């Protein structure tokens, strides 16, 4: 079984529990904080995942961290299950799959908007609304400023890219000049 499949299985279980008890957003937030903590302190990650330490010691560290973070009982249990099954190293992938499943449930699609200049809120809202209308789903975008675009914007959602940058127009013009090549 691949890592992605494993992650999806655990994420689906957590989504189901969160839907039932109405704490899915809380679980999302707690997982996010847990992962941020592990990323911030790599030695903590090592203490939990390194097999040089005994299972009991590593589990003790995990429980202490969860207790100190004030995680919910369900999240503590979920992390213990991951640990006992030897899947704690996939917690990042589980979190990504969890977010995707929540988005699917909420009919949300995520993407990114790159702009040559900082976008105003109104422009961003216009873009988001246009994308939502086009895709028939709620669109959540991350905005990036990229001066190399010269002007205009580029939106990427999933594998689809809508390039409205001046750089793309210039590239098209260059191809036209080269392809049409009557001198």
């Amino acid at each position, binding site marked *: 079984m691949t890592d992605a499949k494993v992650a999806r299985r655990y994420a689906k279980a957590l989504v189901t529990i969160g839907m039932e008890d109405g704490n899915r957003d809380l679980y999302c937030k707690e997982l996010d904080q847990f992962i941020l903590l592990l990323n911030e302190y790599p030695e903590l990650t090592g203490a939990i995942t390194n097999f040089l330490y005994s299972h009991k010691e590593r589990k003790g560290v995990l429980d202490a961290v969860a207790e100190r973070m004030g995680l919910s009982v369900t999240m503590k249990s979920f992390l213990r299950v991951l640990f006992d099954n030897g899947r704690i190293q996939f917690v990042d992938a589980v979190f990504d799959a969890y977010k995707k499943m929540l988005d699917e449930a909420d009919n949300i699609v995520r993407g990114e908007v790159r*702009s*040559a*200049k900082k*976008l*105003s809120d109104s*422009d961003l809202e*216009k*873009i988001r609304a*246009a*994308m939502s*209308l*086009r895709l028939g789903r709620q669109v959540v975008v991350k905005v990036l400023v990229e001066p190399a675009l*010269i*002007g*205009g*914007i580029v*939106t990427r959602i999933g594998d689809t890219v*809508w390039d*409205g940058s*001046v750089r793309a127009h*210039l590239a098209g*013009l*260059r191809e036209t*000049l*080269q392809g*049409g*090549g*009557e*001198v």
Partner: protein
Amino acid sequence: MSSIFGRKKIRWSFVMATLVTLIWCGAVLASSGGEAASGGQAGGIDKVKDLGLRAFNFAVLLGLLIFACKKFKVGSLIDSRRDKIRADLADLESKKRAAEQQLASCTAKLANLDQEVDKILTEYNKDGEAIKAKIIREAEIAAERIRSDANKIVEYELIEAKSRLANELSGQVMQLAEKIIVEKLADTDQDRLVDEYVKQIRTIQ
């Protein structure tokens, strides 16, 4: 000659010729001695006697000659020599005829030599013309191929040059356009670009 008669026969012939000469000389001396002794009246009788001796001498000589000829088979030798000469003559005659025929053949060939030369020259000219035509034809084909290749190369080089020029030109145009756009692009233009982008998003099928 020695091969025909042999040395023995030659020796016998020499001995017989000597005997005949001695006998002949003896007869002559005897007759002259008789004349001197008798003289005068007895001249008529002596002449008859001399004639008889001469006849006798001649008969002996003739007998010796006949004997010698029979002894040495001179007739057969002469016959064989004649036959050989006749055979040689026949052989020479046949050789002469062969030579005459060869001469006639050579004469005829010489007479036809000009025609042969003309024929050979004509054939050579004909072959030469054919080879010349073939060479010209092949040269024309090669020239056409070279011309075609050259045209293709020229066309290809022209296309390459056009493409290269277009690339350089488009590169320069793009650099210039980018520079101008960067200088001239205002916030209002960015808003307009966003509006156009949104409109395109809505209209794209």
